[in-house]
């Protein structure tokens, strides 16, 4: 087989494979964390499966005990909320009304037992707090597109 012909065929195969991956990959992205709604929707949740859940810390839900360093709060994605328990030191940016990702397992009582809290911030930067909401990145893209 001539060299150039081989390169042509090889190039076509590689391009086809890449485009197959790109087209297929966009449809079903698997994400770093699940939202509270997705978590609730799953029926057969095994209690000891390690999970990440992301959402907004519900305003007024945060109860902290600084003596024992325990935190109780709820995460929401706008439709569903999920209770979370955490023991340890959360990051500075972790407050009510802001985004957070928690790692851990769901306890037998249905409360998410977090071992790590990570604060998530949006890709937006501004000196003004108005209209800036970290929650946006937790709501699926099709919801925000209507704004």
């Amino acid at each position: 087989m001539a060299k150039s012909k081989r390169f042509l065929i090889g190039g076509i195969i590689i391009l086809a494979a890449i485009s197959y991956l790109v087209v297929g990959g966009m449809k079903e992205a698997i994400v770093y964390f699940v939202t509270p709604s997705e978590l609730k929707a799953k029926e057969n949740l095994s209690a000891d499966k390690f999970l990440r859940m992301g959402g907004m810390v519900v305003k007024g839900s945060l109860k902290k005990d600084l003596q024992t360093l325990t935190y109780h709060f709820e995460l929401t994605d706008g439709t569903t909320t999920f209770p979370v328990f955490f023991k340890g030191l959360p990051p500075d940016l972790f407050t009510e009304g802001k985004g957070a990702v928690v790692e851990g397992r769901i306890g037998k009582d249905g409360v998410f037992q977090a071992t790590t809290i990570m604060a998530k911030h949006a890709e937006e930067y501004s000196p003004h707090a108005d209209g800036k909401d970290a929650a946006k990145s937790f709501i699926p893209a099709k919801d925000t597109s209507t704004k």
Partner: protein
Amino acid sequence: MAQAAKPIRKSRGVLGALALTAIAIGLYWGLVIAPPDAYQGEVQRIMYLHLPSILTAYLSYFLVFVGSGMYLWKREKRDDILAHSAAEIGVLFTALTIIAGSIWGRPTWGVWWTWDARLTLTAILLLIYTGYLMLRSLIEDESRAASAAAVLGIIGFLDIPLIHMSVYWWRTLHQPPSILQPNKPPWENVHPSMLTALAISFAGFLLLYFYLLSLRYRLGEMREKIKARRLERGV
């Protein structure tokens, strides 16, 4: 030859001076003029270092790819020098990105490091191109080292989209890109004053990058010249 080298050296000096100026202005704008972020506070200013350096590193790896491909095709020594130089500086900027990002991540996310997609991808980039540099240094025969490295430079670059895809599916915490988002212009994400600081800083990094690249390229060229001279004297 000395006459030809002079204007090149002069323009390289100008490039360096420009880079220094742009970085100084960028620093001033980023640290003094631009307002602190409402949510993150002063910490957010690390962005002016973090973001330009990763963009520069990406550019550098692209140049490694181009240089490698050209070298295999044409077998010109200069393409190999380009790829080698770009890889070294790319590794430098990637390391800088990770360090700066880590310092940013600790106060904001609460962790120095997490196995998030973009962080992982950046770390893998660092590993791939460190491996590239090791490969070069561990092969004695120069032309063999050059073609082996070129093959790695090409495969490494083609693998990056796949690695990107896989680590992306695996997990992500990092916010979506602020500047390179397909459906959203950067000014909707970033406050104009911050964006200006970012732009100046980025320009400064680019200039610095090309300054370093030209220096490193010159070094490679001189190495070749020394070799040629010693060969001339040899037999």
